């Protein structure tokens, strides 16, 4: 009885060792020579395989980075500058630094502000709905609310707010990989520079209809009135197709545009204090008065 047991263990162990040796020899014989730096780079990458860099995954990024002459076309948005520094150190290349970015939603067409005029009962997919028609409200530019962006996010940074019918971006979790940007058929999500301490100004609308039509479709729409454009002292705002856009590179975060916007379409995000509209308006009025007096002289 005991001897059978022992024999079994011995034979199986020997067999295992023999086969392991065989596998080792075969592996040595048919080994594919690969740059060891690929493994090193892959180890420092986040490993999310999100495709935010434009490659099929982290390993694809690593092998193409090794093959590239410099890092100009390689940037891991998830890992950011910290990871790119490590990658550059491994490869001995110069680091290409980029300002940290975050996804920003450009629609504030909440259920309350944007009345529904019809009912969509097709498949629950923004892409399918957008291919059929303009949407359930009169605004053909706004969020359809079926959550394609939420499904696309592999970091759990997006969720639908049932009250507003709009997606909410969790900036802590967002890695700016850009999956949601690609998923949105209306192009409502944009990657923006995070800004100092996360502060930034955004026109939360993409409606290009003329003022009255935009207003009729949604109470929160940008109506293209141009007040922000005229008020801005830093040439950060452009007005095109009845829609204002704020260039984060030029914006000085003075919040004057937010104060003058008649529909509240401009949002200041992550500011420590709420906006004191009257004070800002007084400041603008005083400046206008001063410049008028100067003009009179």
């Amino acid at each position, binding site marked *: 009885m005991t001897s059978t047991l022992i024999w079994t263990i011995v034979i199986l162990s020997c067999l295992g060792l023999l086969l392991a040796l065989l596998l080792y020899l075969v592996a040595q014989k048919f080994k594919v020579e690969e740059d060891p730096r690929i493994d090193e780079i892959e180890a420092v990458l986040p490993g999310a395989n999100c495709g935010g860099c434009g490659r099929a995954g982290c390993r694809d990024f690593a092998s193409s980075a090794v093959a590239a002459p410099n890092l100009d076309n390689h940037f891991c948005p998830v890992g950011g500058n910290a990871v790119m520094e490590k990658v550059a150190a491994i490869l001995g290349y110069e680091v290409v630094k980029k300002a940290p970015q975050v996804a920003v939603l450009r629609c504030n067409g909440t259920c309350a502000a944007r009345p529904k*005029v*019809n009912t969509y*009962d*097709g*498949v629950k*997919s923004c*892409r*399918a709905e957008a*291919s*059929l*028609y*303009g*949407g359930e409200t*009169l605004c*053909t530019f706004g969020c359809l609310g079926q959550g394609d962006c939420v499904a696309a996010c592999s970091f759990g940074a997006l969720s639908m707010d049932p009250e507003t019918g709009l997606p909410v971006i969790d900036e802590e979790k967002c890695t700016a990989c850009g999956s949601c940007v690609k998923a949105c058929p209306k192009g409502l999500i944009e990657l923006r520079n995070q800004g100092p301490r996360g502060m930034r100004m955004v026109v939360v609308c993409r409606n290009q*209809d003329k003022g009255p039509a935009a207003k009729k479709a949604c109470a929160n729409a940008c109506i293209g009135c141009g007040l922000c454009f005229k008020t801005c002292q830093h040439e950060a705002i452009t007005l095109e197709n009845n829609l204002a856009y704020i260039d984060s590179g030029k914006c000085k975060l003075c919040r004057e545009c937010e104060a003058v916007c008649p529909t509240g379409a401009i949002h200041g995000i992550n500011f420590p204090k709420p906006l004191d509209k009257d004070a800002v308006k007084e400041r603008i009025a005083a400046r206008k008065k001063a410049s008028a007096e100067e003009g009179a002289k």
Partner: protein
Amino acid sequence: MGGVHPHDSKFAKDCATEVLPLPKTMYVSMAQHLGAPAKPVVAVGDSVRTGQLIAEPGGFISAAVHSPCSGKVKAVAPYADLSGRMVTHVVIDVEGDEWADGIDTSDTLITALPEDRQFILDRIKACGVVGLGGATFPTHVKLNPAPGSPKAEALLVNGSECEPFLTSDYRLMLERPKEILVGAAIMQKVLGGPKCFICIEDNKPEAIKVMDKALQELGFADMVVQPLKKKYPQGGEKQLVDAVMHRQVGSGALPISVGAVVQNITTSFAVYEAVQKNKPLVSNILTVTGDCLPADRHHNYWFRIGMPLSYVAEYAGGVPAEAGKIISGGPMMGKAVVNLDAATVKGSSAVLYLKRETTKRWQEGACIRCGRCADACPMGLEPLLLNRLYKAGDRLEELEKYAAQDCIECGCCLYSCPAGIPLLDNVRQAKQQVMGVIKARAAAAKNK
């Protein structure tokens, strides 16, 4: 192959056509055809007459647009179309119905065919004729196949009208059979004299009889009336070629690749008017019908393009209270109307009022692999497989291999699915993605 048999519900088939009077304002869309939108050539304040050119073709595949009434141009601006998308419209304040010079507005039948092929093509192009079977592809392009294409062996004039509810083609066949046949003879001539088949489904015996009689009276050679089995989608281009000629059009190919040209009978009528009367395409027949209308409220109207749908609906007695969904076109392939103020276009064929319970989607269940969708698919695809591949995401190569791009969006799969799976919706998305890949590949090959 495939197909389904929905109840034909042709409630309006015995209603003779009536002419709709002109409304106060007309909204003429610049995107009434497949291809590039037309470019307006009139400005605000211009006086126009009926049949006058108001927009020229915006590209090679595009069509001219003419004024449907006489009056003053009030605006050239974007307005919402029936799905709520903004499209440039020419808005005209109607003053009357005074036709432009050189247009024969009489009802006299002209049977003598013009000799010159180029003259015919030019007339068709100048009159803005497009395919009125649904796709609104510019007719002059289709009748003039690219050099190197096979010779046309058969011209199929499509009067099958296989969509339930629709009766506009049927009424046209009963009321203007000779005009249709002369139009067909003109197209036959342009194509170099192929045999011509007037294809009519066998659920319309009166139409077959009337067309047969008209054909005998006109005595055209090489033209026959071809009865077809009733089936949806018998009137699909590739399905019709298969049914009549027993030839299969390959994936991604046009019917001309097997020597066939398919034109709708309404297009044939428009060709007749354009060539023989120099009359631009400014009117067409529209059926107002539905399952929530009483028997005396179904109508067939001659409408002018640019009449708002709401005006047509109002004239026909208003939108019934039970209507849960309004569809422009047939119930299988038509589009839900989101904006009833949208204008009618060249391709408008029906305003359909359906009850809420008729259009309501079923609760989606699990696929039981019964294969009914694959049996029903007239293109021989496997919608259940395509649906699964689409849902798995990023399986474009396989979707292309299993020919998602060949879907004609007829809706037979969705109609036949006992589990209420939105097969058409998903396959349509898959098709769009695959088409994107194919186009990108073709563009890349061109740039090389």
